[in-house]
């Protein structure tokens, strides 16, 4: 089995519990020829900006990048749904030879009047720089012509990994922040960064905060609006989830507007409760704290009886998780603990050294930590650690299923809210649904010996 681990990637693994000090190598270019589960810079920018529902998202390049990102996420909007379109300049051979600036200009002139967006993001893809297009200049002129911000997103696919794309997206959004009026924003106010409103999750969090008396100024970016981003600097606090994707924006806002930030997670009962307490504590509001405590008590009471029953079945089962950002992994490990399950493998596409160190510290001995894995490595460890349930995205699903292992989609395509207390219960139901399915009694790798006896 160890044959399947690339020699060049050996320092991108770590197994907890030994006497070796923690060390992992990460944030590197993916190894050529390995089937990395990672995407590219463009993907990073696209996932972060995508849910801004009243902006035009125009992908400047040949068609592929637009085709593969058309309405693939479960990021919901309570109003406009411009984000669900897939706009592209669809560059052809002659554009590549003679340059695509003219086509981009005409595409903006066509799409902006047609859809009346509040802003436009223009994403550059791999070849844009290479064919000499000056995106900045085209966008600047379009801004003047159309009277809305037309913002270039410098997201050429090959110029780094997904993390670089997050940064490009944050830089693009930061051009909007600070351009709107902040009158009427109450002192107890926050922006929600790094939540994408998958299956309506941000609405759950907003409702919790409202019950505590906290006002949300801007959703960044789930159910996002350009006008909210413009006035986001008026909020007293930034709550940063999914730290990889929007941390840079929080830092930029702190630097320029002095907005402090808190890292939070809304996944799992533990972290959800902690997030609400941290907010109350930040505002030093006794009332908010009491309301938060009441809320946590009420919400837990709603889910606890069912959770207990699910836990009875799941106790002792083994889980593996491979997610985009490492921060999500922390919450998932705690959520699994609440279900009585053990995490045997935890990995991410884009974690940092600190992320992985923290991850290692909360995992039980014998857990494998991995950065930027590929199917061969994931398979190796899923078998070696005899895992029952694997949490990941669509690309990880067939790996689990082919091995006769349960699977839970925890990625951007999910249609099930997994945040908040109700999300914790949904998560438990989802894990239960897959782990307890009778199908595993029939799949070849796990077929029970007694079943064969019955058949014989």
């Amino acid at each position, binding site marked *: 089995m160890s044959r399947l681990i690339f020699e060049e990637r050996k320092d991108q693994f770590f197994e907890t519990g030994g006497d070796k000090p923690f060390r992992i190598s990460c944030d590197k270019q993916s190894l050529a020829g390995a089937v*990395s589960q*990672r995407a590219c810079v463009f993907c990073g920018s696209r996932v972060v900006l995508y849910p801004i529902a009243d902006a035009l998202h125009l992908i400047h390049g040949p*068609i592929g990048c637009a085709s*593969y990102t058309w309405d693939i996420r479960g990021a919901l909007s309570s109003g406009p749904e411009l984000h669900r379109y*897939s706009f*592209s300049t669809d560059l*052809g051979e002659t554009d590549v030879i003679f340059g695509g600036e003219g086509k981009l200009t005409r595409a903006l002139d066509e799409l902006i009047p047609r859809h009346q967006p509040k802003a436009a993001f223009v994403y550059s893809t791999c070849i844009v720089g290479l064919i000499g297009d000056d995106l900045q200049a085209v966008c600047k002129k379009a801004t003047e012509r159309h009277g809305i911000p037309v913002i270039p997103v410098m997201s050429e696919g090959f110029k780094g990994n997904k993390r670089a794309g997050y940064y490009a997206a944050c830089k693009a959004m930061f051009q909007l922040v600070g351009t709107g009026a902040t009158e009427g924003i109450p002192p107890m106010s926050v922006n929600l960064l790094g939540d994408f409103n998958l299956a309506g999750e941000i609405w759950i969090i907003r409702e919790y905060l409202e019950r505590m008396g906290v006002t949300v100024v801007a959703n960044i970016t789930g159910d996002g609006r350009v006008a909210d981003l413009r006035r986001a600097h008026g909020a007293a606090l930034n709550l940063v989830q999914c730290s990889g994707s929007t941390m840079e924006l929080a830092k930029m806002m702190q630097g320029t507007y002095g907005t402090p930030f808190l890292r939070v997670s809304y996944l799992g009962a533990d972290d959800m409760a902690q997030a609400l307490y941290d907010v109350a504590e930040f505002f030093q509001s006794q009332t908010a704290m009491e309301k938060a405590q009441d809320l946590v008590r009420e919400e837990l009471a709603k889910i606890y009886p069912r959770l207990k029953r699910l836990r009875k079945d799941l106790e002792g089962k083994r889980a593996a998780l491979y997610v985009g950002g490492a921060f999500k992994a922390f919450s998932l490990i705690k959520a699994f603990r609440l279900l009585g399950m053990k995490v045997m493998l935890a990995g991410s596409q884009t974690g940092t050294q600190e992320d992985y160190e923290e991850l290692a510290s909360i995992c039980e001995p014998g857990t494998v930590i991995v950065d930027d894995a590929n199917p061969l490595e994931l*398979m190796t460890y899923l078998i070696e650690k005899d895992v029952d349930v694997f949490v990941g995205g669509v690309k990880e699903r*067939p790996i689990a299923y082919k091995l006769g292992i349960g699977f839970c989609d925890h990625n951007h395509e999910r249609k099930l809210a997994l945040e908040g207390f109700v999300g914790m219960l949904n998560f438990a139901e989802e894990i239960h649904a897959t782990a307890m399915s009778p199908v595993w009694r029939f799949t070849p790798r796990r077929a029970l010996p007694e079943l064969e006896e019955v058949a014989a």
Partner: protein
Amino acid sequence: MKSNLAEKCDYVSSTNACKACMSLGACIAFKGIEGCVPFLHGSQGCATYMRRYLISHFREPVDIASSSLGENDAVFGGGPNLKQGLVNMINKYQAKAVGIATTCLTETIGDNVPAIVKEFLNEAKVEGAGGKMPALIQASTPSYAATHMEGFHAAVKATVAQLAEPVARHGGVNILPGLVSPADIRYLLEVAADFGLRATLLPDYSRPLDAPAGTSYEILPAGGTPLADIKKMGGAAATLSFGWTPGSQEAGRDLHERCGVCLHSLGLPIGLRQSDAMFEALETISKRPAPARHADERGRLLDAMVDGHKYLSGQKAVVYGEQDLVIGLASFLAEIGVQPVLCASGGRSAGFRENIEQVTQGLVREPVFTEPGVDFYRIAELCRELKPDFMVGNSKGYVIARERDIPLVRVGFPIHDRFGGPRLHHLGYRGAQELYDRVVNAVIEKKQSDSSVGYGYI
């Protein structure tokens, strides 16, 4: 009406594309070769996006390697990464073949892949299957040149051109079906066997992309067109090549020109007449009549077409997707009394309008409006004017079907919003029968659910 519709189509931008990119098509084709791992020479994102897109349709592992170019590689050339990536992948996967497809990035920076591969073959030491160097197939597939359909054909053509050799006649038959479903591939192999023909079907992803449950994650999925058979395609008695677009016939033409293999160029065998053409060709090649069970299947199809004709009378359909599929479907719909009011494709290969006209001639009452190079924004616009009763195409048209509250009969690729896409069967009499039942039922279901009566008998 026709000129009025045509006038408006001068959009610069694309909104909701009715196509994917060339490299994706190449990856599908390469998955259908024994022990072959698709390898994209470009940025890491391309491979990952395409894997996700394909996995969502096939629900199977789709490993696609990448040379994962970074900023320096784009400046100084991707050669070293391509070579290193090949070594890494071949050693881990024990690949028997590697399907190297280029991307926009590497075509634009001007990487000369054939030259790089030649250097690689001279320098590299790899531990592929049995210590052997795998077959390295190269296809040029920049996204900006055409669609996934042309990319698929480019990969098939490259495979034949680079692997098939002029060999002694062996009496087998080559089948080049184009982009069809795993169920279609299994059917074609079954039909060929029923005629007593030894078929080399390229590419055969019927097992790699629709595999039975096994004991493990197959690093190299079993199945695929055997490499030894591909080498011998030049010795076949004939090639059956499906598709009207020029690209679909190139591999067959190459076998004809280089190796003298008789080429039977047919349309996709969708519906009665195109299936007849396929069976006639098989009769000619095998010199025996169609086996009784296929004649029966034809008879049952006709019988069903009689039983169901009134449900479909006067129905108008919009058809979209890859050009060859759309032409085949238009031919079928015209046969069953449905008026295709719009035949649309994101592709721009030659002959689309002419072929649609030809396959519908004499069967439809109105001229069929045909438009290549469209996106779904344009299709939606045309639907508002043409008011179809239902749509036939892949999952991507759902947005329009939902908006218009009309049925969508799902066919082809990708099927992202239903289960069992790879098992949809379109070809031959049996495939036509399945399509026919689904079309009629879609119309009945719509009628039933729209009615306030709640008919239990229709």
